[in-house]
């Protein structure tokens, strides 16, 4: 299939990173779509966990919020939020955290807190939620967000959750034993941290995308790995599963119930 949008390519490429063996802490939005496409295609036995406490959930439509009833209805079990963060996340039971963000830097640190100074922000963003501890306590982290100059910046105004910090062995120096971000999946390409410096480097380019487009849409001088492959295009199955769940989700969320509380 070559008839697909960059966002569809991003979601499908992100879904391919996951396997049946993953116990995955799912961020809302783009990560949630990717995780559920994985579950509905090649990883039917993947364990998806949302921070609302739902474990092993199998939603039929994508949740709008992290705690939609659909998540609880289809979960193997549901725990309290303190138990979720203490036993399951901090306890080291989660193999993979899947995050999005408003801004990212070359070492895969994320900002979802503020643009501008913290005390006098130009834009006040929602904040970190679960991300600071997801980023440090999951075995590894995948990040998915569209490549843009606004999003991929030279310097973050605020580090909400640490990726590779200042690069190199910064995580180890802070005592972290987890891998941190290992893949960043965008709508144009896939990035991986360089094994030594930990700087994000292009390793795979989506079909029809040029190196120039990637350079133009990144806020730092982005590097390409020695060997760069082309991301396989979405299969018909992947695309139809994604489009079906998006259509179901849209119908479910629009509803008819717009009256006031």
């Amino acid at each position, binding site marked *: 299939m070559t008839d697909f949008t960059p966002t569809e390519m991003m979601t499908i490429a992100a879904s391919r990173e996951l396997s049946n063996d993953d116990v995955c802490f799912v961020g*809302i*939005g783009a990560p949630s779509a990717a995780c559920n496409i994985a579950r509905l295609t090649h990883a039917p036995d993947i364990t998806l966990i949302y*921070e*609302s*406490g739902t474990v092993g959930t199998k939603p039929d439509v994508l949740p*709008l*919020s*992290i*705690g*939609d*009833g659909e*998540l*609880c209805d289809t979960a193997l079990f*549901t725990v*309290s*939020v*303190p138990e*979720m*963060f*203490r036993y399951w*996340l*901090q306890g080291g039971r989660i193999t993979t955290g899947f995050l999005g963000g408003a801004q990212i830097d070359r070492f895969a640190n994320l900002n979802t*807190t503020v643009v501008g100074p*913290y*005390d006098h*922000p*130009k*834009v*006040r*963003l*929602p*904040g*970190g*939620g*679960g*991300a*600071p*501890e997801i980023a*440090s*306590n999951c075995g590894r982290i995948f990040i998915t967000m569209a490549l843009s100059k606004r999003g991929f910046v030279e310097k973050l105004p*605020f580090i*909400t*959750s*640490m990726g590779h*910090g200042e690069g190199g062995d*910064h*995580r180890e120096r*802070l*005592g*972290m034993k987890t891998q941190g971000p290992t893949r960043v999946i965008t709508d144009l390409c896939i990035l991986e941290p360089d094994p030594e410096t930990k700087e994000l480097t292009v390793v795979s380019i989506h079909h029809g995308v040029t190196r120039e487009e990637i350079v133009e849409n990144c806020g730092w001088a982005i590097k390409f790995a020695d060997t760069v492959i082309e991301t396989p295009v979405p299969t018909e199955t992947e695309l139809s599963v994604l489009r079906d769940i998006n259509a179901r989700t849209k119908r*479910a*969320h*629009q*509803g*008819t*119930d*717009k*009256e*006031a*509380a």
Partner: protein
Amino acid sequence: MARILSLAEAVAENVKDGDTVAMEGFTHLIPYAAGHEVIRQGRKDLFLVRMTPDILYDQLIGVGAARGMKFSWGGNPGVGSLHRFRDAVENQWPRPLEIEEHSHAAMANAYEAGAANLPFAMLRGYIGADLPKVNPNIKSITCPFTGEVLAAVPAIRPDVTIIHAQRADRKGNVLLEGIVGVQKEAVLAARRSIVTVEEIVDELNPPSPNSVVLPTWAVTAVVHVPGGAFPSYAHGYYPRSNAFYIAWDEIARDRETFNAWIKENVLDAKPEDFARHAAKSAKAA
């Protein structure tokens, strides 16, 4: 023993100007009707605590009821910004808002510490993050056994916690089901508590010996407010109105439309108005 009261009585007796107030419910069972009663009674200078401020705190902030807020994620889930919260932080409208910002893990631990009557909570958290630089209430503590340095935050001890639950019995014992969030911890951490419920029944009949039950002697007031969690939801009663959450984005974006909405749907409304959300869903089911 909990007293079964009207919503107006429960709020008048238990929520005072200047109080630290936690209204909890992690997406599910958010106590909207009670929050609206707090607005109607004109409470002011509240210090609001909540992991995910959500639309309810957008409303309390927008009417100027809050002097400050302790939170860990302040957005409209899946939709975008809380515009009244942003207006308060970015433009000090309608008044400045002092913020104390944490991560979810820290807030959850801090509620649990409050429930456990401990002065602080510790966690392996905030590593490499900037929040400790801007929040003086995030400190560290060294493990006396291993030497590991851990994050420490003060316990949350609200003057009053307000939650919504599925049902209570006539003695005031309360049952919660589904995504139970931090409500049990938030009630046990507080000096006083108000629980609004969908139903008051003769027998609670918890579905499992491990059900989440708050006994009447751990709750201050129980109020029957069917539909009281709308536009969030009550598992087993009515679904989340994702359509309303989406619609709120437009309502709250502008000060005028927000004020008009508050007048029509809060100031000129009654707790009983929430019942239609529960009833309609029951009819559909």
